[in-house]
């Protein structure tokens, strides 16, 4: 992969396997082999400075694992991650704002922590001035710093997590389902805040969500994942206007549509197969309406179909049967 001058993150052939074997003794008694799960299976993408790349896909496809690999919470089993920024200024926002906030600490201390880690020599007065400012930035009041996390609503707690992440003066934020636990009206407040901060501070986001309407609103580029792999990556508008991979089309067709409700939609059958024993060939073939013989044996690689439009599908690549 070529190094792009404006890329802040380059992810190349990234892999992460987990050992999901039964305990050693059980394996011995029941004669079961070792089993590995490929949570992330050869993923590559780049993110440009100041942009948002979103990962979407159904539960278990590997989104959070990528987030943890990028933040260093997991080590890769293969491939590499090149971060052309300051590692200390990479922060993460999690889905559950309650689980990620220490319940015994007052909010001011929670927010101050990354700042104290980043610059331990900062005088107390400066720390507390900065905390007050951050609370205001995310739409809370300085007095809220004296309270404990449980005294806040879900949306307010997520604002606290954002304030904490900002305290580390981030340039890059990994956001794993930051609004999935929130009501839509609260989600709107948090998303608007995140967009505003991105503009003001030139932040780069790796944004994870399973909600395509949220992703459409937030992302410049969208990567669609299925069973540990990126099956398609496109700029947001293009992905919605011209989805290339059959799985992307399935996802787009299945989301309930508020503006043009399809009340008699026929749901697509099948479930996501187990990642421990994914189907051979293209792992989507058991559910794919376009699958043909080759799909059952060979694994499609992600090729550039058009510039910046990459898809891993034989049908889409060959302009095969029934592709727009």
């Amino acid at each position: 992969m070529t190094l792009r001058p404006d890329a802040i993150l380059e992810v190349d052939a990234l892999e992460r396997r987990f050992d999901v074997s039964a305990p050693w003794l059980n394996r011995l008694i029941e004669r079961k082999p070792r089993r590995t799960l490929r949570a992330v299976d050869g993923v590559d993408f780049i993110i440009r400075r100041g942009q948002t790349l979103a990962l979407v896909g159904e539960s278990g496809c590997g989104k959070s694992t990528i987030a943890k690999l990028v933040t260093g919470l997991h080590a890769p089993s293969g491939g590499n991650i090149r971060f052309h920024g300051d590692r200390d200024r990479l922060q993460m926002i999690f889905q559950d704002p309650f689980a990620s906030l220490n319940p015994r600490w007052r909010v001011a201390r929670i927010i101050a922590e990354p700042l104290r880690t980043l610059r331990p020599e900062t005088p107390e007065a400066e720390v507390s001035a900065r905390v007050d400012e951050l609370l205001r930035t995310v739409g809370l009041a300085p007095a809220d710093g004296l309270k404990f996390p449980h005294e806040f609503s879900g949306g307010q707690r997520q604002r606290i997590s954002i304030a904490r992440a900002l305290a580390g003066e981030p340039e890059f934020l990994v956001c794993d389902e930051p609004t999935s636990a929130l009501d839509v009206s609260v989600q709107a407040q948090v998303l608007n805040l995140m967009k505003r901060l991105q503009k003001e501070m030139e932040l780069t986001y790796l944004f994870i969500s399973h909600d395509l309407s949220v992703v459409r609103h937030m992302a410049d580029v969208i990567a669609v994942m299925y069973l540990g792999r990126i099956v398609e990556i496109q700029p947001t508008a293009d992905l919605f206007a011209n989805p290339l991979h059959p799985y992307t089309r399935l996802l787009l067709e299945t989301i309930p549509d508020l503006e043009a409700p399809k009340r008699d939609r026929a749901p697509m059958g099948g479930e996501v197969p187990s990642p421990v024993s994914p189907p051979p060939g293209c792992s989507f073939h058991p559910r794919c309406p376009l699958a043909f013989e080759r799909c059952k044996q060979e694994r499609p690689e992600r090729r550039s179909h058009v510039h910046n439009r990459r898809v891993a599908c034989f049908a889409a690549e060959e302009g095969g049967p029934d592709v727009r």
Partner: protein
Amino acid sequence: MSDVVLDVRNLRVEFPTRKGVLVAVDDISLQIRRGEILGVVGESGAGKSMTGMSILGLLEPPGRIAAGSIHLSGDRIDDLDDRAMQAVRGRRIGAIFQDPLTSLNPLFRVGDQLVETIRLHTDLDKRQARDRAKDLMREVGIPAVEERIDSYPHQFSGGMRQRIVIALALCAEPELIVADEPTTALDVSIQAQITALLKRLCRERGTAVMLVTHDMGVIAETADRVAVMYAGRLVEIGKVEDVVRRPQHPYTIGLMGSIPSLRKDVEELQMIPGAMPRLNAIPPGCAFNPRCTQAGPRCRAEVPRIPGGHSTGAACWLAQTGTVEKGEAA
């Protein structure tokens, strides 16, 4: 006989606490007819589950129904004793919750759980009940029923488990199903399968369904009518296309505007400033007034209600009378 299956009138649910009485559901009235799906939406803490739990007779003390009535096909059910209510729950009302594991016993095979429930509510013998269980599993779309019937709940995926719960809820052919966030924990493709299943049951068996969810997209594609709750009160109710396309209550209007679009590009999402009040701090008058850009003197003094009939309308002075001034046009 009328085809009203569920008739809730002026329901009030209270939680007595040391600091005073909290009102979690405040004067809610709604009806569901045979074969109709009523969607119930509103933000976290609005009282959706408490309404559902009251209908199911599953309110946990100290929560209690303090006023109002609930009728099921003409029979009053809110004043039944525990045993009688338990019979109604199994036989005449089915329940589906967000987490299928709350409805399934992890220690028993799903087939045995289905057979037991069927035998409790019908006079089929063991063989017949097992056949019926298989039919139900097929009906809810479980593949390879002969192989799966003797599996344990943990051997199914989340979507499959939720289908087993639906099969369990259908065992006694209930008149009403209360489904509280049945697809919230599931992926979109599975969610579409479950909602299609609910719709089919409604159409083919005439079951009435109360579908609680916060996903407006699901409501738009599934429900016939929708009720919007805010701070324990009903703020708007009506046909789904009316409420979605032409919401009247300022809260509903704000809610619709805050949902990111799949078509339109906007730089900023519409926001409702502030947050829903806690139960111990509900303002006088319209509960939405501190967040409402149109609020006037009347809104801060008098509680607006859905106009009589309860089947359509908005609990908003402005929507009802065209003014928020006191005393006028009242």
